[in-house]
């Protein structure tokens, strides 16, 4: 009995963090860590490496949270990148409209106004997505494919594919500044991840989202206003893409209609790797964060080893298949 105790404790901690995949992910994280530590040595643990990892993760992280919300309800949000770019361009447009010399309260107010305008755009896209999906009954993948193309069209049409750049210091700080060594962008990520986790696990809304993802019809017949919940869900997803937009534009000090397009499928990859069921109903923020750390660790390690970033992509794909195959393999072994 005594020997069994720690094992079941690990299991219970794992389960409370987010289902069966968490155990697999922790195992994977530890083994990757050991392998990279042996191959790379000290450099892998240097403050610089850790800091650069912490700088790179938040963008993908916030976008993955946006994708995860839609996935949990059994949907998909293909428009997150286009939303982020249109939001970034809106903020950039308002920011660059002002006289650079102006100082003081008015300047701070203008920056806040710019960000507010950006979130207005993101919110509007979210409402369009939510309305079309929840009230017209269009499948999420098609509706968001439409808004994705539409948003990209507006962004490209207005900017002719050009870049808007040159932002004030406070904006740049969001992407590049640090607070006692911790990148501010990571703080922003935490400020997104914690409320999302609370929203999903400790509010009636969160419970509704998981129920919709498991069985939408049954949820509707049990008296839940699934349409209102879905509308709100896609609004939140869009607003998270808006936060990602601020971080992204701050990091590059510019905004463009085509930034981060390769992230789209990677956000799905990250979410599913983190144990989010692609058909909805299951998945926790904790699992997603573990998946993000694993992906970032592979990317940084390959960078230190001077291996191509494209090899990183291939390895990411391989790991997704390996982790996704674990439940079925476990069933086969038990038989």
């Amino acid at each position, binding site marked *: 009995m005594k020997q069994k105790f720690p094992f079941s404790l690990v299991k219970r901690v794992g389960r409370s963090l987010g289902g069966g995949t968490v155990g697999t992910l922790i195992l994977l994280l530890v083994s990757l860590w050991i392998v990279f530590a042996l191959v790379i040595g000290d450099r892998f643990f240097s403050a610089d490496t850790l800091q650069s990892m912490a700088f790179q993760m938040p963008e993908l992280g916030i976008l993955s949270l946006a994708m995860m919300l839609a996935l949990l309800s059994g949907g998909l949000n*293909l428009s997150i990148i286009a939303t982020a770019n249109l939001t970034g361009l809106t903020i950039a447009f308002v920011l660059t409209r002002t006289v650079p010399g102006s100082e003081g309260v008015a300047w701070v107010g203008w920056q806040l106004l710019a960000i507010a305008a950006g979130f207005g755009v993101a919110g509007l896209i979210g409402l369009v997505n939510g309305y*079309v999906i929840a009230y*017209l*009954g*269009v*499948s999420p*993948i*098609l*509706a968001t*494919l*439409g*808004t*994705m*193309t*539409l*948003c*990209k*069209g*507006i962004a*490209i*049409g207005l900017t*002719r*594919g050009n870049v808007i750049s040159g932002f004030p210091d406070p904006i740049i700080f969001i992407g590049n500044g640090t607070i006692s060594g911790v990148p501010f962008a990571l703080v922003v990520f935490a400020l997104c991840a914690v409320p999302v986790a609370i929203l999903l696990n400790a509010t009636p809304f969160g419970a509704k989202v998981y129920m919709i993802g498991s069985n939408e019809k049954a949820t509707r017949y049990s008296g839940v206003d699934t349409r209102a919940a879905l509308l709100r869900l896609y609004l939140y997803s869009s607003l998270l893409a808006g936060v990602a937009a601020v971080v992204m534009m701050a990091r590059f000090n510019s905004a463009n209609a085509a930034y981060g*397009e*390769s992230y789209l*499928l*990677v956000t*799905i*990859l990250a979410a*599913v790797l983190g144990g989010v069921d*692609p*058909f909805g109903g299951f998945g926790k923020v904790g699992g997603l964060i573990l998946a993000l750390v694993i992906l970032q660790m592979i990317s940084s390690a390959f960078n230190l080893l001077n291996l*191509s970033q*494209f*090899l*990183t*992509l*291939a*390895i*990411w*794909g*391989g790991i*997704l*298949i390996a982790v*996704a*195959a674990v439940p*079925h*393999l476990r069933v086969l072994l038990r038989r």
Partner: protein
Amino acid sequence: MPDSLKAALARFRRSHEFWLLAVILMLCTGLGLANSQFLSMQNLFDLLTSYAFVGILALGLLVVLIAGGIDISFTATASVAQYVALAIANAYGANWLTVFAMAIGIGITLGAVNALFIQKLRIPSIIVSIATLNIFYGLLIFATGGKYIYSLPDWFATGIFWFEFDWGKASSYGVNLQILILGIAFLVTWLLLNRTNIGRQVYALGGNPDAAQRLGFHTFRLNMLVYCYMGAMAGAASLVQAQLAQSVAPTVLVGKELDVVAAVVLGGASLAGGVGTVFGTFLGLTLLAVLQNGLILLGVSSYWSPLFVGLVILISVSVTAWSQRERRARRVRA
């Protein structure tokens, strides 16, 4: 008019294809009146040539969607097939038959990899194809360094030009490689889905996989066939694209997968499986092609074309969903 024909017409009028055809005819009439160039033979042949790549891929994807799966790794498959087949053709020589055999063979192999992961490891097809997209593409760029191939074999660069005929003064038209392969792809896909036993099994598999399995269909073999067919189409399409572009660029195809999805879905194929027709896919593709081409002829900057494409997708899927809901509501009331 015989009753059976009348019934068929009535059924057609209620179908998704009817509305698509109506919208396309309206668009074409309007564009034809606004710009005399639009309905010219030259423009028609140019459109067919430039949309052949997306069209061939769309036909492969149609079969996968009907079977109830999805594949978005086909752009990576096409990149690999294109690169390897033409690199070998450059190094060791080849002819039309062998270069297509190589590209299609590579496509089938990579399609089989997808099918194996989906069927043997029981992973949802969307996850597998996102993963394999990254694997195929990542390894290709890692191995080749992302270098373009500019020098293609002469016979390949020249292409083919059949049934040449003159039209007016200085222009001549003919069936080029793009149009030929697109035509073959349409014919083969139509035959497969409508005139073979396997085609009916693919519909059944997508409509209700459990029922199909209990009826005794070999679902593993069927799935294998469907993903290999997608791979074969990706292989053929890749050569068509390389011949048109006159180069092999390993990085330009990946990222276009959602355009193909949009064309197939506009054509009425359902992501839930079991639904979709070759004619619908043709119309979906035509709508996108006519729209983008028309905008350019009307003098609208091509920067704006995604905006209109997005609007058309959004409106089309909304109207379809709304009318389905109305029909269901009417049925409940009756």
